[in-house]
């Protein structure tokens, strides 16, 4: 019995390990390539471990030959800005959809669900035209505005708030809290795991987004990390794959660090264990 348990554990770990390797392989490849000298990238002999460590030159190239630092800063501004506005609107909306009784609530929630089905590509053209008309292309506003309202966030938080005990809300109302104060002082702290999970989704999505920046950004001053990486594939820089992968590693690092920092809250958030 014990032996079978051991074998079973061995097997399940082998499967999990294989999955993990499959997931991690591109990242490892990226890291290995980012320290590989150019002659080895295009060379005929393949070595898994680079024969010469070219990390310094590749990373230096990545940081200096393009506007990567500036793009990273822009990326931070855009992602934090989007997330802040998303939370500001999605949390009270979700609370209202989950806990307040008003006419048309179900209908509005239906619209939210409908919104979940609409990809960004659908409103991209009208948004672009509108921004162009307003003379707002190539601005932070243009980068952030389409994502300010997140139906995904509303949906996620609504499901979370639905489990919030009604009696606590009544107690708060009796103590004199208004609905907005209830949202920010009671519901939000309880929803921290959901907020952490949503934040990771949101930041990853907008940090990695190439589609929308490609449409609205034209100048180097408003470039974001995904666009900056693209620059390394330009014919002008000659397709330097070592530097390209170094840039990719640099832009991926904040996401990975962020995930590890919030890992526990993230898992709690997506498994949806609300407050008791």
């Amino acid at each position, binding site marked *: 019995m014990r032996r079978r348990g051991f074998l079973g554990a061995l097997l399940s770990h082998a499967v999990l390990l294989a999955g993990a390797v499959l997931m991690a392989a591109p990242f490892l490849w990226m890291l290995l390539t980012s320290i590989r000298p150019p002659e080895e990238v295009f060379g005929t002999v393949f070595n898994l471990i680079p024969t010469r460590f070219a990390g310094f030159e590749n990373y230096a190239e990545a940081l200096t030959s393009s506007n990567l630092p500036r793009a990273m800063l822009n990326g931070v501004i855009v992602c934090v800005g989007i997330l802040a506005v998303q939370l500001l609107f999605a949390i009270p909306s979700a609370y209202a959809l989950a806990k307040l009784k008003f006419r048309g609530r179900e209908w509005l929630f239906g619209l939210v669900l409908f919104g979940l089905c609409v990809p960004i590509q659908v409103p991209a053209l009208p948004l672009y035209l509108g921004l162009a008309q307003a003379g707002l292309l190539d601005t932070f506003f243009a980068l952030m505005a389409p994502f300010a309202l997140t139906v995904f966030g509303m949906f996620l938080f609504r499901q979370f708030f639905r489990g919030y005990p009604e*009696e*606590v809300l009544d*107690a*708060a*109302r*009796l*103590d*004199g*809290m208004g609905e907005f104060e209830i949202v920010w002082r009671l519901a939000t*702290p309880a929803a921290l795991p959901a907020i952490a999970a949503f934040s990771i989704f949101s930041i990853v999505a907008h940090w990695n987004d190439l589609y929308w920046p490609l449409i609205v950004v034209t100048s180097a001053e408003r470039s974001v990390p995904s666009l900056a990486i693209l620059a390394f594939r330009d014919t002008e820089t000659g397709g330097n794959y070592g530097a390209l992968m170094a840039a990719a590693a640099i832009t991926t690092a904040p996401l990975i660090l962020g995930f590890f920092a919030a890992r526990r809250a993230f898992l709690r958030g997506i498994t949806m264990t609300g407050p008791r």
Partner: protein
Amino acid sequence: MPIERRPPAGITLRGITKRYGAATVLDGVSLDIRPGEFLTLVGPSGCGKSTLLRTIAGFEPQDEGEVAIGGRVVDALPPAARDVAMVFQSYALYPHMTVAGNIATPLEMRRLSLAERLPLLRLLSPRRPRIRREIMAEVEVVARQLDILKLLDRKPAQLSGGQRQRVALGRAMVRDPAAFLMDEPLSNLDARLRVQMRTELAELHQRLGATFVYVTHDQVEAMTMSDRVALMEAGRVLQLGTPAQLYDTPASIAVARFIGSPPINLLPATAQAHGVLQAEGLVLQADSTVPPGPVTLGIRPEALALAPEGAPGTLAVRLRRAENLGAEWLLHAETPAGVALTARVPATEPVPERFGFTVDPARLHLFGAEGQRIETRLGAMVAA
């Protein structure tokens, strides 16, 4: 620093009606709750007692009728402005706040402005530290009264059920409200703690001298703690009175059935001409005319006594089960017609193999065909 208490306020309900769609949950309820009294709303689940409490608090505005607290009509006021505190069944503590934070919240909401409650911005208020100190001093006074001083820094999740209950009480007490509303506050506690908290709540009521409106489905809680009890069923108050009045002179079968443990025995009987009542082997004489027809005799378990089997004027019964409660026996028996009777007899002597029941006619309740109480004096009439 003793907290100066205001005089308690009375609550007047006039014709409160509440409907959910087609269902009428409250049907013209009128109640006069006196200042400082402990009034219990008791009844089976779904009788509207919790809805009535929530109507007083302002959570469920009534469709018709009027609520006045301390002589002031509060129908247009939101819950917070009604000056009542509520203790909830689940305690409803703020989960991420400490005990001290929980108890302080109602005071902070009243004494600090919105700006003074906001993060960062509140640091700008010069008067906030002083107010916070005053609030924390009052929180400590309440915590000392409830013996939870050591728990002030804990979070609700780290407390036992009884401790949470006290914190919920503290949060209500610190406001010094016009009245306390309690919605089944003991039902989440284990049996032993419930008995203990019953005593503590009754003592707390005496010490505070405040008006308590208490909702429960447990008639024992209603009988042991209250000054007066309002028994509700199907959205109406069936009877309002002291526990003794409800027990000794129930206005209807429904009241008689709900109050008392073990429950009252109901024996079908027939009223004949000249106020003669007949039920199984029992013949009784009423001192007033009782309309002839079917009636019901209500017999409390302690109004039955053991008698030799087959003695005249007794009820013939067959014992089904005897429960030894130590000082007394509970005898579950059945008449030949199949009516279950429970008797409570002193455990001074062993229960005989075969016996009958005699009934003390002065302690009988007579109910008419509609279940209404018929006020009469009954006397035994030994059958020939």
